[in-house]
Structure formats: C-alpha cells, structure tokens
C-alpha cells in the first residue's frame, strides 16, 4: 500500500471539516475522491499533502508515518501535488515553474525537462513566457508537468478539470492516464466533473459532509446514476 | 446595546469612576501627570477609530496632532486675547479634521489603501518634521509668532474660559469630561448606521462598494474624524506643556500610537485607553528611575506583548474576563472586539 489515511480529522483552525476519513491507495492505481462543492475533498487532500495539520488520525506513506511531517518533507519523500486552480507561479517563467519541480529533492533523480516537454509540447513553445500569461488549459498542463518533474511516487491532483474548457478536460484525462501507464506513477485526484471521473478513475471514494459515504469500483463506475447521487444530493 | 454587561464595559465604568476621584487621592503633580496621559489617550483613540474600526492603517496621526498644536500656538499667541483660547481649541480641531479630510480625499479617491496609506502618512510626518525643524529663522514669522524651528514654540497660553484659567485640577477635569464624551461617542458610533458601514468597509471594502456605499467618502469622513481627535490630543498636549516642537511630527511620535493601539487591542477603544495610560505611566516611571535599562525593558515588553498576545494585551484580558465571568461566547465581530487580527 502506497498511501493509507486512517480516521483523519482535519480542517481550518479548530473546526473539523474532514471527520474520520480513511482511504487506501495502492501502488499504480488511479483513485479519485468525488463529491459536491464544499464537502471537504480539498481539505482532505491538503491534509494528505501536509498543507493542513491533521487534528487526529494518521497518514502513512510508503510504510512511513508522515502524519506530523511538513509538506515540504512529504514532497521530498515523493508526493507530487497539483493544487486547485492549478496554482502556477504567475510571474515565474514556464521553465522556472518546471524547475521548481526538478529541484524538489536533489538526492532523488528528477525528470528531465525534455521528457516533460515531450508530454506537453505546448510548454516548450512557451518556456520563456511568464506562467501568468498562459491559458487555463496550458496552466493545468504546467501544473501537472511541474509536479511530474520531481518524479513523484504519488501524484495528487485537486480538481484538475476546474476552469478548463470541456474539450481540454478530455485531453487532460488522457494525459494523466498516460502518465500513470508509462511512468508508473500512482494517481489520487479530487473531482466533481462526471466525465473525468468516469474516464479516469479505477476506483473512487465518495465524500459528503466531511465523511466517506461510499466506495465505487469496477462496473459501478459506469453506473451514471449511482455516481450522480454522490455528486448531486 | 451600550450598557451591555461585559468585562470591557465594567472596566470602562470603573476606570472613569477612578479618574473622577483621582484628584482627591493624590497630589497636584500626579493629577497634572494623568492629565498629560489622558491627553495622549485621544491620539490612541483616533487611531483606534480609523484603524480598529475602519481598517485604515496610518502613521499620520502625528500630522494632525502637530498641525493643530502649532495652529493653536500661532492663533492664541497672535490674538493675544486669552479669552479667545477656546476658539483656538475649536478651530484647531476643525482644521485638523479638514486637513485630514483633504488628505483622505487625496488618498482614498485615488485608490490608495492598506499599507500604502501608512507609507504616505509616514512620509508626510517626516516632511513636516523636516520643514518645521528649519523654521528657526526670522523669515518664519506668522503674525508676531516665530515658528521657532527645532526649539519649537513655548509659553503658549493655557485655555481660559471667560476669566477662568484652566490649570491643575480644572484642566484635568476638562480633559476628562471631553474624554468621557468622546469615549461615549465612540461606543455609540460602533453601532450607529455609519459605524456599521465602517465595519463593513474594514471587513470587505470592495463588497461594501457594491452595496451602494460611497466607500472613499466614508473612509475620508472617518479619517477626518480621526484627524479631529488627533488634533484634540495635540492641543491638549500643548495646553499641558504650553509648548510644541517639530518632534511632535517625528518618527517616534508617528510610531507610538500604532504601538499602543496594536499592543493594547486595536478594535477596542477601552483597551486603547487603558493601555495608553499604563504605557505612559510605565515608560515615565522607568525614565524617572534613571535606569539605563529603561528603553530595553520597554522594547522587550512590546515584543513580548505582540508575540504572545497578538490580539492586544488589554483586549485579550477583556476577552478572558468575558469567558470567565460571563460565559458568553458572543458570535459576531460587532459584539466581540479584538477577537481576530485583521
């Protein structure tokens, strides 16, 4: 098991937004967490990443307890993160943004920028451009490329479809799948876009009001109505 | 709403009671000294009003403090008629308010906000300090009064109402009564129609505009009120020492109100009042002791206060008092002051 979260409580300040969430992610899997706006999905993955403290519960990554370690240490250990809204550094150039990724852990091999440009040829054209001037889809590509550059074991994506035209959402899904297949990187993503969930997930956890309310896998993933019940109450 | 029973209000009532009986308890010097502290309280309250209530961070209270002080000096010394001193007081406060309004207009209608207001006002105080510092020459006469450069102006007449000169206890009570009036006004203002709009501006300026409020106008208005209060402080300071110098505009004068309001509790006028009096008393006692460690102790106290009690020393005490004695976890910012840093 690559990642285990066990009865995690967390939130902003003292208030628990996430209440006793437990999930597991196996190596090589593509797992999603689905649910409506404001049910605590982002809060939970931020806690996994270490950007928010867990009030209680534990998080294990690669057989190590990382519950108390800081975000930067988790990143160095092999967690890649694509924040909600992509979160590129707007006044850094595209290349500088990517270099942020390659420098995550100097002791581990990072990915060659050329490899990343192979996956995202658009970025190569714009490598000298300020990231803030890219379109939404390009920023998403940059954010994924940046996280990829550190060669993570686990790539966490927070709503990769947000702010992107429907046509591009499909492309991004394919890209993530390709990354998973070709590089063997495990994927955990948060989503509420039905198309993306169905296209990409191998297994998904449904979340509501801070708790996991269901787990969907296999054939059920194509059960439109079942998924819809989690996304719209 | 005003008479709501909580620690802050009880302490406020007790403080004012204490202030009223104070002259009975102590000698003339101590009364004069407290009169001085109370004069400086207006300066803190002025910043509390614009920063704590409205979210405008300003180093500029010293500007109005100094300008009105100088105005009062020039006006009363020129008129030579001591019965006109109350007019000097009133005009000084008005002029301070008007200048603040003009400065506010210049800034807020131009979209200057947040830390930049602090920087503009800081520069302005330094301009005035530099300018007034070099007015020692004979060309700097206004009427019969030389602005006096770095040495400033002294022998400024005390306030005289009719034939009664306000010194000693009478001056003290005069300051105290006006302080009480201002204090009650500020307490009322918090919940007035304008006061509520002001809190809205502090919390979310852009949104308040979209509710139809002319935000720059309200900001300028509050800034002018703050200017008038700071002016009152400046004139009382002049009345206390019969003296004013450009150091009224100096970096230290500009910083002190910020320090006091931040360390006392910025959204709470009682906290600003109490902390100002305590601070002046404490720093004066240290200075009088002649200890070379006075300034070090003062510096450390400020550092520790901000580090460990970020919501303000006094405001946090009030909060603790409320929790201990009143068990009331009032829900809203409009009622629970100083609960969160802006």
């Amino acid at each position: 098991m690559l990642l285990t979260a066990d009865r995690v409580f967390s939130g902003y300040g003292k208030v628990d937004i996430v209440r006793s969430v437990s999930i597991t992610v196996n190596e090589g899997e593509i797992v999603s967490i689905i649910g409506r706006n404001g049910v605590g999905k982002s809060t939970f993955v931020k806690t996994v990443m270490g950007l928010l403290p867990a009030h209680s519960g534990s998080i294990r990554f690669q057989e190590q307890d990382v519950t108390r370690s800081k975000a930067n240490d988790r990143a160095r250990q092999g967690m890649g993160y694509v924040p909600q809204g992509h979160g590129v550094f707007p006044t850094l150039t595209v290349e500088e943004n990517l270099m942020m990724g390659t420098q995550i852990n100097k002791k581990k091999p990072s990915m060659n920028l050329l490899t990343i440009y192979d996956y995202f040829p658009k970025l190569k054209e714009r490598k000298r451009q300020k990231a803030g001037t890219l379109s939404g889809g390009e920023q998403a590509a940059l954010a994924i490329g940046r996280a990829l550059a550190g060669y993570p074991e686990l790539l966490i994506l927070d709503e990769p479809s947000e702010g992107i035209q429907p046509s591009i959402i499909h492309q991004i899904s394919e890209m993530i799948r390709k990354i998973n297949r070709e590089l063997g990187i495990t994927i955990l993503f948060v989503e509420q876009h039905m198309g993306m969930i169905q296209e990409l997930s191998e297994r998904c956890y449904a979340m509501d009001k801070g708790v996991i309310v269901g787990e969907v896998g296999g054939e059920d993933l194509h059960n439109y109505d079942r998924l819809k019940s989690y996304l719209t109450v | 709403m005003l008479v709501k029973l909580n620690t802050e209000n009880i302490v406020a009532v007790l403080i004012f009671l204490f202030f009223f009986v104070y002259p009975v308890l102590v000698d003339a010097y101590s009364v004069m000294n407290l009169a001085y502290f109370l004069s400086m309280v207006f300066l803190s309250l002025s910043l509390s009003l614009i920063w704590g209530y409205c979210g405008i961070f300003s180093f500029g209270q010293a500007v109005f403090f100094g300008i009105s002080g100088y105005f009062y000096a020039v006006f009363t010394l020129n008129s030579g008629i001591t019965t006109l001193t109350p007019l000097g007081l009133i005009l000084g406060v008005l002029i301070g308010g008007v200048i603040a309004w003009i400065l506010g207009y210049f800034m807020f209608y131009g979209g200057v906000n947040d830390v930049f207001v602090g920087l503009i006002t800081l520069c302005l105080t330094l301009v005035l300090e530099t300018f007034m510092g070099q007015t020692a020459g004979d060309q700097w006469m206004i009427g019969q009064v030389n602005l006096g450069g770095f040495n400033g102006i002294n022998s400024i007449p005390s306030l005289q109402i009719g034939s009664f000169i306000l010194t000693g206890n009478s001056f003290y009570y005069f300051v105290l009564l006006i302080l009480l009036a201002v204090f009650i006004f500020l307490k009322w203002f918090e919940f007035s129609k304008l006061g509520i709009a002001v809190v809205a501006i502090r919390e979310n300026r852009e949104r308040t505009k979209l509710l139809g409020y002319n935000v720059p106008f309200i900001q300028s208005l509050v800034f002018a009120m703050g200017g008038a209060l700071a002016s009152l402080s400046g004139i009382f300071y002049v009345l206390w020492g019969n003296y004013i110098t450009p150091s009224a505009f100096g970096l230290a004068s500009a910083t002190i109100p910020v320090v006091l309001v931040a360390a006392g509790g910025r959204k709470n006028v009682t906290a600003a009042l109490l902390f100002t009096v305590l601070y002046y008393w404490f720093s004066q006692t240290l200075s009088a002791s002649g200890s070379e460690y006075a300034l070090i102790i003062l510096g450390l106290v400020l550092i520790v206060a901000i580090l460990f009690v970020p919501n303000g020393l006094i405001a946090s005490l009030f909060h603790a008092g409320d929790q201990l004695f009143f068990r009331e976890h009032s829900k809203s910012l409009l009622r629970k002051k100083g609960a969160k840093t802006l």
Partner: protein
Amino acid sequence: MNNRKKRKSLSLLLVFVLVLAGILSGCGKSSGSNDDSKTIKLGVLEDRSGDFSLVGIQKYHAAQLAVEEINKQGGLLGKKVQMVAPDTQSDNKRYQEMAKRLILQDKVAAIMGAFSSASREAIRPIMDQNKMLYFYNNQYEGGVADNMTFNTGAIPEHQMVPLIQYMIKKFGPRVYTIAADYNFGQISAQWVKKTVEANGGKLVNEEFIPLGVSQFSSTISRIKKAKPDVLVTLLVGQDQSSFYEQWSKSGDKSIPMASTVNMAQAYEHKRFAAPALANMYVTATFMEELDQKYPSAKKFVDKFYKKFPNDKYVGMEAESEYTGIMLWAKAVKKAKSTDTDKVIKALESGISYDGPAGPVTIDPKTHHAIRNVYLVHTDAKQKVHIDTEWKDVKPDWLSKEKNVDLTKKQEAKQYTPLK
C-alpha cells in the same frame, strides 16, 4: 446570568482597578513625601540615552562628582545633597515631564541640566511658572534673559567674537559658514555674520544643514568653489559630525576651520582618525587638554577619571555642570537657605568660584558667567595646541545692547543678535 457571578466578577474587577490605582498613586507619592528629611535635593536633567548621550553622560558624571565632593566636605547647611536624576532620553517631551516631576513631586531645591537649546526651551517656562532656580550649564547661542535661569557655559561673547577676530586677522577676510539648520546654528550664524562684518571681513556664504543629514558631497563642492579663507563649522549631533571625515577626503584641507562647538564638547579630535579634525581652531572655556598647562584643570581631570575610569573625555560641558553645581552650593551657603529668592540674591551678588578653568563669576545683570576663554588649534595629527587665552571675558552683550538687567527687571525671553 445569576447575580452571584455578576457580583463576583464585579468585585474582582474592583480589586483589579484598586490595585491599579494603588500602583499609580503609590508611584506618585512614594519618593516625594519626605520633604522634611535631612537632605537637600538637587534635580539633574541630562540625557543618558539617545542622540545627546555623548555629552549628557559626561555632564551627568560631572554632576555626580560635584555632589560627591560637596557631601564629602560636609554637605550644605548641615544636610547632605541628594541628586535626583531621571534619564531624559534626548526627548524634549521627557524633559517637560521630568522637570514637572522634580519640581512638584520631588520638590528639589534647584535644577541643573539640558544639553540642546530645544531641551532648555522646553523646560525654561516650567521653571518660570514654578519659580524654580534653574542652571543651564552649557555652551549655547546666547541671549536668554530669564530671572530664574543661570548659565555657566560659554556664549558668543566668550567664543564667537574672539574666534572670528582671530581667524580674520590670521587667515584673511573671506568667511564661509555651515551651520546646523535649527536655532543654535541659525543664531550662532547670525553672530558670525555680525562679527565678520564688524571686523571688516566678508561672509561669502552661509549654508544651513538639516539635522540628521550625514552626507555632505554637495556642501563640500560648494565650499571648494567659494574658496574661503576661513570655514566656520557649527554642526551639531552625530550625523552632522560626519562632515569632517568627508571634508578631509574630498575637501580642501588647506582651508582652516573654526568652531565653537567642536572638540571641547564632543571630542571629535579624539573620536575621528587624523586628519579629519586637523587644522581646526576652537574657542573653549574648558578642554581636557588644558591639563598640560593649568594645574587646576589637571586636578579636575584627574579626579574625574579616578571616579569614571571608563569615560573617554572630559569636555567643557562637564566642567560647566561641575562649576554650576559648585556655584549653586556656594550661593546656598551664602544665603544660608535653599529658598529660591535668597539663593538668587546670593548668586546675583557677584558670586565667584575658582573652577577647573579659572575663576567663574556670575554676572548679576545677565545671569551669565564671566570666565576665561582659551583658543586652541589642532595640528595635522590632531594634537591640541593652546594658542591664546583671554581672561575674564564678560557676557555683556545683553546688558549693553539689549538693556537687560535681571536684578532690576523681570524677563523671560531669548534675544537674538539681528533683531
């Protein structure tokens, strides 16, 4: 809410406020309530921190020395002298607070102190209001005519007049003045102008430098262009004293400098590496270096360093403070009382004290001091040479030109030369 809780909280708060009241009033009274004790209190207001501490600490130490000596010799009127000396922190506001405190609460017999003119002007009216005897023991721009104020330091008649005469005679008539842009600098510059004109010289330029300026390249370039025979520097404070180092590197060191404030006050010749202060001419009422020539000066300097071995210099303000306290003590003895009016009368009787730099006599009409003045200059290694001395220089400009006679007329103002 139940009533018991309310009462409990009220009583707790009452206790809190009462404690606060106790502290406030206790502090107000604790030190001031021993009027009938066996000491005479002497207030000393000197800056021991902040901008002026360089001179303030010297003066404070000199005061300690004087009071210690007086007490060693049996005190005054059978009582010990107790010094009350808050730190005024180079802050004029603080001067006012502390002056009031010394007068109203500590009930001191007299107050010594203040370094800058601004500090003096902050407290002088308070002294007048409260009829408090005040000694301003400091070199200054002159002109204060005030019944309550006595000055034992040097004023323009002592320093500026002889200095300018000497310089014009020795180096030539073209004089350039740079002065601090505040009252001391401006009034002193008026004295320079007045004296230069009276001695057939020509003032080529006068330039005023705001306090706090420490960079002088434009001033230096203007001076070099004007090519004066004499450069008068009336610069004040740590920032402005940076001028000398900068002048020595890009100025014209062949132009002699003249000053009334440098060296004797803030020992720039010892603080700055040579040749920053080389070729500087100064008139002073006292300097540490007088000990080469005058035994009384040597005695004072030795005493001072014995008590304060870590101090760096004993300058003219320290001497003035010391002499001022001694004069006051002498007057108290003569009046047999610390009563202000009686002591002033004693002081106005032409009282004199044989100080470290020769006799110092109070001029009754002006309340300033009749005293010796020394002209010194520095060589390239900043070694001090004593060139001339003038004996018993009278501070008589006020009495002669402004008709001041404090023994006859009440006054409380400052006169300036060009008005």
